[in-house]
Structure formats: structure tokens, C-alpha cells
């Protein structure tokens, strides 16, 4: 059985991403998929979940919003923090026939099961989701959008590369960069939408600009990119996509995820949402992260192929 003891890692580098967000690069590595999370422990303070912004070296992007995230922000290079993980199910690639997510909402456990016992981690919950194929895109958008911030990716993108659309809000942009790198490395075309309240709160714009992705920005006050919500850019981004969209990925505030899930359901687009819920054990026992009708965010998620709260 795989131990999940907290591992001490020292902070090797701290980057200010915006006024309230810092990225911590640690001196360790983990074998993990984008979308998986760790429980970060500061002895004597608290332990909370954070998505991996990178796994090698382990990198966390943290927005200071309350006591624990502020405690993390007060750390300096050389200080240690302790990580338990990786935990949960991360994003899966939109491979034909092997996608583990579905646009239609599965029901937790219907008694189907397999008799084989393998390593605990890989076994967890992998059998309950059904597979459905995305539909060709339809309906051109009527939303007025700003031009994509960068279109550099389009020059080398061939129509044969499956297209993926990523939506990030708040710190959620960070794990999507980790995902975007994996998608690009496996031959996918990537469109990325970054949403924020204002230009000052946009995250990782430079990092994405440097990548071969079609980047779209949305700010609520219009100080950068489109004035509006990240979800408002979906239609133009899909319309400008080089091919039909094989998967929509998102990480960010619950409101954004819910709205996105509704849009994708209407458009019959497959989606993977990185969900958030208050976590205690992080390993599927305490029920505190339950969402909707019996979903465990830590064990079944945090990435779901549907809106788990409905």
C-alpha cells in the first residue's frame, strides 16, 4: 500500500503573480497528473488542499484569501512546508474511446465492480464514469469579443490536432498551465481563457503568451481583453478554434464552473471541471467534501466530467 505521509519540501523560489497571488516552487518532485492536489501542512497552523501548478518541481500557486493562505504567503525561500499527496483524480486527456468523463451525469455507484485488486491509488473510483463522444461544434457565437491576445499558436496548428478549450479563474489558471503543457506535448491544440476581475488580477498571462496556445482574456471591468466573464468568451473561442473541440477543461470559482457546465451541456461538449470543497481528511473518509448527491470531491474528484453539485 502506498504511504501518503507528509513530505517536507523547502521553498526554492517565490514569484509574485499578482497583488494577492504567489507561486511557490519547492525543492521536491511528485509523480502526478494535472488537476491532482496535495494537502499542504504547516505544522501547528493548518492543512489545506492545493492543486499542483507543476509536479516537477512541485509548484503551488496560492491566492491569499484567509488565515492559511496568508500564512503561506508569509513564508520565505528556504522555509519548509509539508505535502501529502498527490491526491484525487486529475484531468484526463481527450483520447478517443478512453475518455473517463461524460457530458451526461453519471450516478454514484451502481454496483458494477471488478474483482481484480491492484495498487490502491489507480483503482480508486475509476470504474463509475461512462464515455460519450463530443459533438461537432454548432451555432456561431453572437457575443462581441476582443481579438485573441495572442494567436501565435495558429501558425503551426494543423486542423488534425484535436482542439481543447481551457478556462481558468483565479488561482485555477495555474493548474491549467500544467495541463496545457501536457496537452501540447501530446499533440493537442489548446485555447486558453483567463478570467479575472481586472487586468491587475489576471494570472500567468506571460506564461501562456509564451506557449503555443490561443489565449483569450476576460476582465469584469474590461481593463484587459473582453469585458465580461470567462464564460462569455467561450463562444468566440470555439468559433475561432482550428477544429471541433474534443474537451473543455476548467478550474476556478464554483460559479464559473456551474455556468460552464450548463453551457457545455447545452452545446453537448464534454467537460472536465476541477471542483472545490472544504476538505479535512482528503482521503475519502470524513464526508466533509461531499458535493451534490454523494460525490466526494477528494476521492471521486476534484476533477469531474459533469457538474457534481446538481
Amino acid at each position: 500500500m502506498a504511504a501518503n505521509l507528509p513530505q517536507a519540501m523547502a521553498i526554492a523560489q517565490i514569484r509574485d503573480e499578482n497583488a494577492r497571488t504567489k507561486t511557490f516552487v519547492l525543492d521536491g518532485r511528485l509523480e502526478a497528473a494535472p488537476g491532482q492536489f496535495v494537502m499542504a501542512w504547516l505544522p501547528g497552523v493548518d492543512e489545506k488542499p492545493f492543486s499542483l501548478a507543476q509536479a516537477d518541481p512541485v509548484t503551488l500557486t496560492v491566492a491569499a484569501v484567509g488565515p492559511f493562505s496568508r500564512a503561506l504567503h508569509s513564508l520565505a525561500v528556504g522555509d519548509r512546508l509539508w505535502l501529502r499527496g498527490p491526491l484525487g483524480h486529475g484531468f484526463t486527456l481527450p483520447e478517443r474511446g478512453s475518455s473517463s468523463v461524460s457530458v451526461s451525469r453519471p450516478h454514484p455507484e451502481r454496483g458494477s465492480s471488478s474483482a481484480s485488486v491492484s495498487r490502491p491509488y489507480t483503482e480508486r473510483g475509476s470504474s463509475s464514469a461512462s464515455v460519450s463522444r463530443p459533438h461537432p461544434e454548432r451555432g456561431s457565437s453572437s457575443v462581441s469579443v476582443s481579438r485573441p491576445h495572442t494567436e501565435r499558436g495558429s501558425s503551426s496548428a494543423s486542423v488534425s490536432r484535436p482542439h481543447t478549450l481551457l478556462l481558468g479563474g483565479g488561482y485555477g489558471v495555474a493548474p491549467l498551465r500544467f495541463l496545457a503543457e501536457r496537452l501540447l506535448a501530446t499533440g493537442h491544440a489548446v485555447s486558453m481563457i483567463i478570467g479575472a476581475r481586472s487586468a491587475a488580477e489576471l494570472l500567468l498571462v506571460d506564461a501562456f503568451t509564451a506557449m503555443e496556445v490561443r489565449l483569450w482574456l476576460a476582465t469584469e471591468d474590461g481593463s484587459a481583453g473582453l469585458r465580461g466573464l470567462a464564460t462569455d468568451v467561450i463562444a468566440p473561442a470555439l468559433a475561432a478554434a482550428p477544429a471541433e473541440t474534443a474537451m473543455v477543461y476548467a478550474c476556478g470559482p464554483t460559479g464559473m464552473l456551474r455556468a460552464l457546465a450548463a453551457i457545455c451541456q447545452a452545446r453537448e461538449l464534454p467537460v472536465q471541471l476541477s471542483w472545490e470543497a472544504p476538505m479535512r481528511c482528503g482521503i475519502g473518509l470524513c464526508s466533509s467534501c461531499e458535493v451534490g448527491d454523494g460525490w466526494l470531491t477528494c476521492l471521486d474528484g476534484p476533477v469531474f466530467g459533469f457538474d457534481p453539485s446538481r
Partner: protein
Amino acid sequence: MTLPPLTCDFLGWQLHSPLVLASGIIGASASLMARAARAGAGMVTAKSCGPTPRAGHPNPVALDWGGGLLNAIGLTNPGAQEEALLLAETKRRLAPLGAPLIASIFAGTVEEFGQVAAIVAQAQPDLIEVNISCPNVGDEFGTPFAGSPESAAAVTASVRQATTIPISVKLAPNVPDIARIARAVVAAGADAITAVNTMPGMVIDAASGRPVLSNQVGGVSGPALKPIALRAVFEIAQAVPATPIIGTGGVVTGQDAAEMLMAGAAVVGVGSAVWYRGVNAFGQINVELAAFMAGQGYPSVAALRRASIRRG
């Protein structure tokens, strides 16, 4: 290979599987308990509730240390009144699934145990599990009620008087002679025994020089608990052969479940396996148990139980 049925009898109910969701694991919501039953549990146990709401301990509250788990959730619960509503809702959701519901209670004094039992009894759970083995509360010396035959019997009698619903008393592994405790609670009116609760333990992070759990100490469950639980169940089965046992501790596979039945359990509690294998653990263990029985020629759970080990 046609698989034998897993149906079995427990206190007169006909269960479709001998697996029981153990208390404290995904037992804080009706939807999760119903999910466990759909996944294959024959009965489900709610998380223990006490007289008043408790938030539990700050994080970290649990971890996998390699040989098993350690937890100190801190008996998080909404209090008995709220719990009764939750139990009623859960019962409603379990009814179509044919899975009996076990309520679980704890309290700080002998009298309070009876009071909490009376409150949760309003929801008409099928069985009330009396958790006398929680390490946070105890007798005048601070010893859990499960620690002595006298206090264990006193709690049992108090609950017995408060309700006509069948009761199972949940014992602790950290006692010198669990058979004595078992005899005492049966004499005081227990219909069944649940064995065992977690074993007191501590995990230290050497790099920080601190215990990992905020509560410093916690309870060991999972694979490391299995030999301890098997022995406890074996000793109890020899001591009170007429009393059915919910054998609990470290069951992760169908073979583990078979061993627990061989040790003398009537049915098999499953908790930590949810971490190791997901909520689907129940269905997986069912299939493995049935395959084991087919391979060894046991036509039924009753036949497997008849092969249980005698003191020799």
C-alpha cells in the same frame, strides 16, 4: 464459474451482502450512506453522534502512514436531535435498497448514553451501535468505557433501558482481555458486538519533530489493524458464541472478509477500504469474496461461517 450468493442472516434480517459500512466513514450524509449501499454494502452505519454538536479537530485529521491509516476526526457530529432527522432521511433512502440502517451513538456519561439512544431511536434505525470505545470520553479516570467490564456493562444497560431497538456495543482493541468485556456487555443486554474500533496510535513527522495529527494522537485503522481485529473477533466468538459480531478492522479484499468470517464474525465492517479502493470497494470485495467461496467450495456465507475457527 457461477458465484455463490452472498445473502446472509443478521439478527433476523436477510442481508444481500455481509459487508457493513463502518461508522465514521462517509456516514455523515444520507446520500453517501445510500451510495455505499448501492455500491454493495449489506448494511450501513451512520457516523457516531453525541448529545450536542461537535465540530471536531482542526486539520490534519487523517493520513495514510503506509501500514494503515491514522485519524482523529474528533467525533464531528450535528448532535442527537439533528442526527435523528438525518437518520430518518437515510432510512427512507435505504428502504428501496434493502439495507438496514445502524445508528451510532457516544456520550460522556452512562446516563447520557441512554438519553442519546432515546433521541436517535425516534428515527427508528434498525440497530443502534453503542460506541463506548471513542478515546475522547470516558469514566472518572479518563478511561474509555470500553476499558473495563463494569463501565462497558453500565453503558450497555443504560441504552438497553432507553430503547427496544436492538443494540450492538462497539469494543476497543486496547484492553487486556476483550473476552471479559464481551461477556459483560452481553450479560447487560447487548444483542450484538461490533469489534473493533481503531487502535490508539501516533504518527510523528521526524522532519518537523511533531505529531502529524493536530490532536497529536489518533486511531489506527486499515491493514495494520487486521491481525488485531481478527484476534479480538476470535476471542469474542469463543466467549459469547451466541452473539453475532460485526467484525471490523483492516478488511480491504474479499479474502480479508473471508478471514474475518472464519475468525467468528457474523458480518464484516468495512471502513478504510474506501480510501484504498474508493466507494466501489464494497462491490469489489463482494465479487472477490464470492469468487473465493466458489474456489474453496463454500456454497453460502452460512457455510463459510460454520467453518469458523474453534479454540484448539
